[in-house]
């Protein structure tokens, strides 16, 4: 009999977080996640659910988002938990927050680049005005211990080298890149609030992720490859198949974020992602092998030869060494789990 989606996710959390008692400091504390119903918010909620279940820590979670109904429908196993609250709020218009909040993960704003190109002004406003609204409100919280600001690897600019990107890297910046520039100004805001209001802020720069709760229609190669494979192929590589990326699994991401919230150094910036590089060609072959070996892989590209190979892989030494973290899921396991989860019926139907 097939397992339920939420059972699969619970097992993933268990694998990523071997010692849930590590988080005993969060006992009876309240964590706010802005953009709380997205990929990150859902995985953190799953991880908190796992920790609460095992340790009876009663960690309170407030998920703040514009669309909470979708979460209620799609995540009934979490939405009704007594320690979870859903707050409908556009981050741009946020003024006051519940006074009992101790920790904040600011993940509002979509990384979906279709939205960035279609609605650049909304994108800019959400990241700039939304971050400022949040930080103003946070500055009035009496019990606040730490804020994680979710930035992006795009603040680094383009990486022409074949080296993994360190936190001190500065590549070619393109001022017309709305998302990258929005994230850069948001980071600048964070540093200003840290200096002027002494807000305890940590910057996280995410790279690419894979796992349940990632909509396979999002315009990222791994999502589309898995979707193509589930649909029976062919897997379509659009553009340069030599492009290098890496993928961190959702439950590992959640574990790393919570550990950063627990013991990360205020004022520091950390990369969040997998250090294991893979080309899109190799990724497609892996997915073909793991999901459906009989399907075809086709490449559609504007050019036969590329001058540069895009390489977006983080150097994760800083976060893994200083916070004692490791990747619990290999890429192969991540692909398998993601595929199985997407093939399972929704929780409601199990």
């Amino acid at each position, binding site marked *: 009999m097939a397992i339920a989606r939420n059972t699969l996710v619970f097992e993933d959390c268990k694998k990523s977080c071997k010692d849930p008692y590590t988080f005993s400091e969060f006992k009876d504390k309240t964590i706010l996640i802005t953009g709380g119903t997205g990929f990150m918010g859902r995985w953190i909620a799953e991880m908190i659910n796992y920790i609460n279940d095992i340790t009876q820590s009663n960690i309170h979670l407030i998920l703040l988002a514009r669309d909470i109904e979708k979460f209620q429908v799609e995540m009934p196993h979490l939405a009704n938990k007594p320690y979870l609250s859903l707050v409908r709020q556009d981050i741009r218009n946020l003024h006051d927050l519940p006074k009992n909040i101790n920790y904040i993960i600011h993940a509002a704003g979509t990384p979906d680049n*279709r939205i960035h*190109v*279609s609605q650049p002004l909304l994108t800019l406003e959400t990241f700039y005005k939304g971050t400022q609204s949040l930080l103003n409100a946070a500055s009035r919280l009496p019990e606040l211990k730490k804020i994680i600001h979710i930035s992006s690897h795009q603040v680094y600019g383009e990486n022409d080298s074949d080296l993994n990107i360190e936190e001190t890297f500065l590549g070619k910046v393109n001022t017309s890149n709305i998302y990258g520039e929005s994230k850069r100004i948001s980071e600048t805001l964070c540093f200003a609030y840290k200096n002027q209001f002494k807000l305890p802020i940590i910057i996280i720069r995410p790279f690419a992720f894979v796992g349940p709760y990632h909509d396979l229609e999002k*315009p990222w190669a791994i999502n589309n490859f898995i979707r193509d494979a589930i649909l029976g192929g062919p897997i379509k590589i659009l553009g340069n198949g030599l492009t290098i990326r890496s993928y961190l699994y959702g439950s590992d991401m959640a574990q790393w974020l919570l550990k950063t919230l627990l013991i990360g150094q205020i004022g520091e910036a950390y990369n969040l992602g997998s250090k294991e590089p893979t080309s899109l060609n190799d990724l497609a072959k892996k997915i073909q092998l793991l999901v459906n070996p009989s399907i075809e892989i086709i490449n*559609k*590209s*504007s050019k036969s030869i590329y001058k540069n190979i895009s390489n977006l892989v983080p150097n994760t030494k800083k976060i893994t060494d200083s916070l004692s973290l490791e990747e619990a899921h290999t890429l192969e396991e991540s692909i398998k789990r993601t595929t199985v989860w997407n093939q399972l019926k929704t929780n409601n139907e199990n």
Partner: protein
Amino acid sequence: MIKHILISDPTLRDGNHAVAHQLTANQIAIYATAADEAGVPIVEVGHGNGLGASSMQVGLALEDDVTMLETARKHLSKSKLGIHVIPGFATIKRDLIRALDIGVDVVRVASHCTEADITQRHLGFVRERGKEAYGVLMMSHMAPASVLVEEAQKMELYGAEGIIIMDSAGAYLPSDVEEKITALVNGLKVPVGFHAHNNLGMAVANSITAIQSGAKILDGTARGFGAGAGNTQLEVLIAVLERMGYFTGIDFYKMLDASDIAEREIMPVIPVIKSESIVSGLAGVFSGFSKHVTRISKEYQVDQRDVYRELGNRKVVGGQEDIIIEVVMDLVRKKK
């Protein structure tokens, strides 16, 4: 290395413009069979303005979309069945789902060259259904290369597996094609394509310039059957491509046969570059307007060439067919 060019044949779609959207199911069956036999990779079928476009505004088709697509599907085995989709004319729920259920393989989602935003949902939906999705920028002569690249990049993000620019007015010279295709090839990850019209007699030359500039997809129709002065004449294009060492997968002799069949069975008149088509091309007016302009100009006894000039001045685009009568009435008033 043999260079492969993907050919898409809109004889049964753009050609529908040439007959005021009056292609019959039998004609569709005849040409689809011939094109399939020739190994044409993609055969595009439908109303001239695409799926769901049959209307008083742009012209009522003789056959409905279902009849046209089911007929073509029945007669295509090797060739893929393609459709042209302009969001607004075609909705996902009413038109696209049904078309995919009939068995459409390739969906080319089109917008005016500066309005790619409207294609997001349609492109996304086609990819979700596991079908081939391409983005098409129409009337591309109206935007500079930099804008075309920005709009094409949007379509790429929305899921397009290739971007085709249309010279919908037949206004390009080879230098224009070189500039725009080069910019697109450099700015995009996915393959670039070109769809020509022959108002200035440049359709084949422009198509060849496109592939020499890096395009990998070309459109062409039998005898150039299409709106206005017609499209790139496919059998000529195949001959030239073969001579230049490109591979299309199309059997040349069978393509010649298909063109002869098309001329005999579906064309009341073979497209030629009429005087007004030249003016239309120079003025940059959508080729799909030609039937309307001819009819209304004749009715009100105004010079078609003046109508095209004024439509060009007003930068009118496909879907604004109602402006034609407005322009004609202005000319009538001026004459008085």
